[in-house]
């Protein structure tokens, strides 16, 4: 089933209307769980079963964590939960059909996967959040049935947001009972989502073709992009950077909009990431649900409780490399994570320096020119990191060739 198309629209409309029927709450919840299972089933009949196995295993671990199992024992119990996260992305599991139809249409460049693991990248992260929070708070956010509804929630199962259980719970009682405000906000979100993903994203995808097809062999011989001028290379780079934002933010808007029609209020996932004056601020606007997941469950635990000046830098590098490998376990995504980790680390070192000249720091923060400079620098840094994964994340030679084109060195 395509993510945006007639069958998807009919499916969403059917679920929204069915949930609006005057049914008892338990019936609405059961209906939504069935819809979630059907959504996964459309991709592969085995997908709901694999979700169920992973989710039930995670729930069992979460119960143990809530009872006090922690440290190495909890870590060991979590390891099997990582299997559906990485196994389908390994090359020997590659399914060419899904690469073409499934992964590409999610728009978040998650790489290859087989159909029966569809959604695993996201439902596994949600499950791990559930387990780790259970350990920290000595309590479960949701009972089993509602946990399954939340973790398989179909608007978010394919490409996020990674809605947190405690936030999901806030509006869960309103399931199937949208207010007028929900309907208005949902309509606006769906409109902006379609505008971003279909209209603007569609245009940008065309302009980004010189980079996304760079290095491909042409039917008549030769390599695509071999004779590209440097300014064409920059236009394509800007287009791919903006495409990644519009496409992904558009999908998130659609997920939020559809959820509002069901009476559910999910957390925002994007907030003008390219208008941020630093790389640290960029991650407060880009894929927020993932960014906060990385911060809370990787970066901060890696920092520990230490006064070490070096450890936060290592934690930034480590957590961002893992973030990259989550997108795809290959060299390109690993380097992408390393670049972002290094960017955050360098920015922190700069911040510390500037903070010790606090008067100057405040003055710069109020300067429009300084903010614009920061935005331009951040945007170009992020755009350049897209070259690591937009061409061919497994062939860095092509990325190097493209970078040479950009800087007139070809």
């Amino acid at each position, binding site marked *: 089933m395509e993510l945006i198309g007639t069958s998807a629209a009919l499916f969403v409309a059917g679920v929204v209307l069915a949930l609006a029927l005057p049914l008892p709450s338990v019936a609405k919840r059961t209906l939504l769980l069935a819809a979630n299972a059907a959504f996964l089933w459309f991709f592969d009949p085995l997908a709901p079963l694999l979700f169920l196995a992973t989710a039930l295993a995670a729930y069992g671990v979460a119960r143990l964590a809530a009872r006090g199992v922690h440290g190495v024992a909890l870590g060991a119990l979590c390891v099997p939960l990582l299997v559906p996260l990485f196994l389908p992305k390994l090359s020997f599991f590659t399914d060419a059909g899904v690469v073409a139809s499934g992964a590409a249409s999610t728009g978040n460049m998650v790489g290859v996967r087989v159909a029966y693991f569809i959604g695993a990248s996201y439902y596994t992260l949600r499950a791990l959040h559930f387990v780790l929070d259970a350990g*920290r708070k000595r309590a479960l956010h949701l009972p089993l049935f509602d946990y399954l509804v939340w973790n398989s929630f179909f608007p978010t199962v394919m490409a996020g947001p990674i809605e947190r259980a405690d936030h999901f719970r806030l509006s869960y009682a309103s399931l199937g009972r949208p207010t007028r405000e929900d309907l208005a906000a949902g309509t606006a979100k769906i409109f902006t989502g379609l505008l971003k993903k279909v209209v603007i994203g569609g245009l940008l995808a065309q302009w980004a073709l010189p980079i996304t097809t760079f290095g491909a062999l042409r039917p008549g011989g030769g390599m695509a992009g071999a004779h590209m001028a440097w300014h064409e290379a920059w236009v394509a780079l800007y287009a791919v950077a903006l495409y990644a934002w519009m496409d992904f933010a558009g999908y998130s808007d659609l997920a939020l909009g559809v959820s509002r029609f069901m009476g559910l209020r999910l957390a925002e996932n994007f907030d003008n990431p390219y208008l941020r004056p630093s790389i640290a601020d960029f991650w407060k606007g880009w894929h927020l649900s993932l960014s906060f997941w990385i911060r809370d469950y990787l970066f901060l635990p890696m920092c520990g409780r230490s006064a070490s000046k070096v450890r936060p830098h290592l934690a930034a590098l480590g957590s961002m490399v893992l973030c990259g490998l989550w997108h795809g376990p290959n060299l390109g995504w690993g380097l992408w994570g390393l670049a972002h980790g290094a960017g955050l680390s360098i920015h922190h070192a700069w911040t510390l320096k500037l*903070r*010790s000249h606090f008067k100057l720091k405040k003055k710069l923060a109020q300067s429009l020119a300084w903010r614009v400079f920061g935005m331009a620098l951040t945007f170009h840094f992020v755009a350049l990191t897209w070259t690591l994964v937009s061409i061919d994340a497994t062939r860095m030679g092509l990325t190097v060739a493209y970078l040479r084109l950009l800087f007139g060195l070809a």
Partner: protein
Amino acid sequence: MAADVRESLRTYFTGKIGGDRSLLPKDGESLVEEGILDSFGLAELVALLEQDFGVKVPDSDIQLATFESIDRIADYVTARRA
């Protein structure tokens, strides 16, 4: 006791901004919004609270919102000691 904690925190954060106490925000104002405390600085702050103030900070509390301002941190230390 609470006044001592506040004073120690003021000294700690003054050190972070180059030593000029007059530039430090008021106790109730956000250290995060002023750019004095961020995720990178949380671990060091938690280490300070645990080692110098003798409070145990559980993992679930290690977030910027818990330590938004000097007032909040002082209140947190007082509550954890109680």
